[in-house]
C-alpha cells in the first residue's frame, strides 16, 4: 500500500461524512489523504481517478453492486473496503467487507481497525533524479531552443523530447523556462554567460 494511504469515504449523509472526516483528522497515527463522496455516481469516477487504497462506505449505497464487483471495477485487488454501519444490518451482507466500523466505535477502535488493514509503510521510493539526457534537454530549453530544434540537436524524435520535458516538469515541479534556469545554475549545468550568448 502506498503512503499516504488514500481513503475515499462514500456516505450520502453529510453529518456522518463530516463526522468520519473529523475522527480521521484526529487520529494522527496514520498518514492519509482523504476524499469524500456524497453521491454514489461519483464513486466510479473516483475509483479511476483517485485510485484509493481504502474505501469506507455505507453498505446501503451499495445495494446494486457487490463488493467483488467494486474491486473489479477499481482494477485493484488490494483495495480494502470498510462498511460504515449506522443501523442494524444483515451479518451476511457485511461479511464481504474487509472490516466494519460502527458509528458508535470509539476513536481507538477505529484506529485499531484501520491500522489492521494497512500494511506497514514501505520506505517511500525516493523521487528519481533527473537523467543525463534530461539534463541535456534542460540546457537546450533554457538556451531558448524550441522542441523541434532540441530534437534535431540531440537526434531525437519530437515525441521523445516532449515526453522528456513532461518528465522533467513532474520530477522537478518546475514548469517555466525561468524556473529551469535557476535549477540549472544551482546544479551547475550551465553558466549564466552561456545563456545570454
Amino acid at each position, binding site marked *: 500500500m502506498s503512503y499516504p494511504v488514500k481513503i475515499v469515504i462514500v456516505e450520502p449523509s453529510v453529518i456522518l461524512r463530516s463526522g468520519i472526516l473529523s475522527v480521521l483528522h484526529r487520529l494522527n497515527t496514520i498518514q492519509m489523504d482523504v476524499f469524500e463522496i456524497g453521491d454514489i455516481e461519483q464513486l466510479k469516477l473516483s475509483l479511476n481517478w483517485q485510485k484509493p487504497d481504502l474505501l469506507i462506505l455505507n453498505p446501503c449505497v451499495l445495494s446494486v453492486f457487490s463488493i467483488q464487483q467494486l474491486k473489479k471495477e477499481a482494477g485493484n485487488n488490494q483495495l480494502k473496503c470498510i462498511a460504515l454501519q449506522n443501523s442494524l444490518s444483515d451479518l451476511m451482507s457485511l461479511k464481504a467487507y474487509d472490516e466494519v466500523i460502527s458509528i458508535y466505535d470509539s476513536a481507538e477502535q477505529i484506529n485499531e481497525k484501520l491500522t489492521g488493514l494497512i500494511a506497514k509503510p514501505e520506505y517511500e521510493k525516493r523521487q528519481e533524479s533527473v537523467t543525463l539526457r534530461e539534463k541535456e534537454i534542460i540546457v537546450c530549453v533554457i538556451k531558448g531552443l524550441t522542441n523541434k530544434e532540441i530534437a534535431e540537436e540531440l537526434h531525437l524524435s519530437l515525441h521523445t523530447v516532449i515526453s522528456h520535458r513532461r518528465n522533467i516538469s513532474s520530477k522537478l515541479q*518546475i*514548469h*517555466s523556462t*525561468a*524556473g529551469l534556469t*535557476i*535549477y540549472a*545554475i544551482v*546544479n551547475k549545468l550551465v553558466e549564466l554567460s552561456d545563456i545570454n550568448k
Partner: protein
Amino acid sequence: MNKFRFGKYRETDVMSDLIGENYPALLVLSRFGIALGFGDKSIGEICRDSGVDTDTFLAIVNLMVVEDRTALSADVRVSIESLVKYLRNSHDYFLSYRLPEIRKKLTEALDENQEDLNKAVLEYFDKFVIEVKTHMLYENKKVFPFVRSLPKDGKKEKYAAGFSKQHEQIEMRLTEFKNILIKYYPAQSTNEINSVLFDIFNCEKELTLHNTVEDYLFIPAL
C-alpha cells in the same frame, strides 16, 4: 468543552471582533480607506461613517471566512462602484507595495556569493511581476472603466473563464517561485530568508483572495 464560532459576519457585529478573529481583514479595511481607532462600533456603523457600501464590505469579508465557496449564495448584493474601488486599491497594494517590498527583501536575503544564481532568481521574480502588472493594469484600464457596458449573459461565461484562467496562472507562478526557493536555492536558513518566504506565503494567500473576489463577486455582478 470546545467553543466554536461559525457563520458569516453581519453588519451588527463589532468591527474589532472581526479583526481579532480574522486579521487579514485589515487588508480589506485599508483598501476601503477605513481608518483604525474605531472603538466598539459595529461594522455597519463604521462603513456608513467611512462612506463604504456595507454589503460589499461584508461580501468580501465573508468570502475570506467561508471555506466552502460553492455554498456562497449568489444573491449577495454588491455595489459595483465600491467593488471596483476596492479592486483598484488592491491592485495598487500588490503593484506599489507588496511585490516591490518582497523584491527588496529578496535582494537583501540572497547569498552574495551566488551572483549568477541571484540574477536568475531576480529575473524570475521580475518576469512574474510583469505578468501580474500586465493583467492588473489591463483590468484597471480596459475592464473597470467600462463595467457598465461589458457583455451581458451569454458572453459573460466566456469572459469569466478567461479571467479565472489568467488568475490561476499568476497564482501558479508565485507558488512555483516559492518552491524553487525552498527546494533549490542553496541559502543558509537565515531570518532574512525566512522572512521573505513568510511574505511570499502570505502574498500567495492574498493573491488568491483577490482573485477569488474577482471571480466570485466581480464577474457575477456584471
